[in-house]
């Protein structure tokens, strides 16, 4: 066992209904945890925005705007790693099917969708998607430097 795995991990979780008006709750929950973890204000903002984007994608694509579903957010804090899992039980999402836009070319065609995934990758250190039994999981990692 390494020293790191002996360190205590603090885990917090929040469930929100699949409604855009609840996005602010998700942002505040994650921002509070990130502040306690020791992130500077800009990083706190960026982490909250990445979670907002992940939840928005779930509401739009996994649940197709159904408002009676649930999104679970699990924050695990084990310095220097701040991990956020965002889980849904909706339609599977295949990130391989999404081509990351080359922004200059993308903007020149005035497209409006698909900006969220691009933004998430810019805001945190890692973005991973996995399909687990009966749920989809987006995993975001941000390191405290």
């Amino acid at each position: 066992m390494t020293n790191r795995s002996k360190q205590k991990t603090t885990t917090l979780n929040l469930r929100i209904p699949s409604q855009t008006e609840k996005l602010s709750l998700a942002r505040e929950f994650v921002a509070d945890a990130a502040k306690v973890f020791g992130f500077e204000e800009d990083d706190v903002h960026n982490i909250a925005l990445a979670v907002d984007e992940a939840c928005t994608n779930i509401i739009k694509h996994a649940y197709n705007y159904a408002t009676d579903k649930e999104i679970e957010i699990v924050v695990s804090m084990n310095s220097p790693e701040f991990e956020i899992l965002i889980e849904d039980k909706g339609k599977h999402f295949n990130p391989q099917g999404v081509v990351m836009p080359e922004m200059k070319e993308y903007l020149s065609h005035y497209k409006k969708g698909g900006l969220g995934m691009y933004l998430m990758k810019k805001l945190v250190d890692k973005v991973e998607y996995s399909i687990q039994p009966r749920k989809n999981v987006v995993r975001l990692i941000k390191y405290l430097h």
Partner: protein
Amino acid sequence: MNEFKISFRESGKIHVMELKGYLDAHTAPNLEEAFQKLVNAKKFNILVNCKDLAYISSAGLGVFMAFIEDIRTSGGDIKMSNMTPKVYNIFDLLGFPMLYEIFSDEHEAVKKFDAKKQSSK
């Protein structure tokens, strides 16, 4: 819940929208409606003052993308001003400053609109 408000005023022939609060997937439809109203009324010179805009997600950025082409084709423009560094950083991450003129102060943006009108006379 985080609130979002839009107020309108005129500065000469420029239509100024002041955004306040949190612009996300929940509130972006309000901005979309506001742009649609201006476009329907053929008000194409639009300046968006972001002084009190605390937050923007891609849903909000998408609204600017949705209208810019039609507005420019109609001879107008969307210019922006007074962004906080936090909000500017998100526009910048997506390369928006290549596509939109963003001014630190509203007066500069108004002057730019006026200069364009002079040169097209």
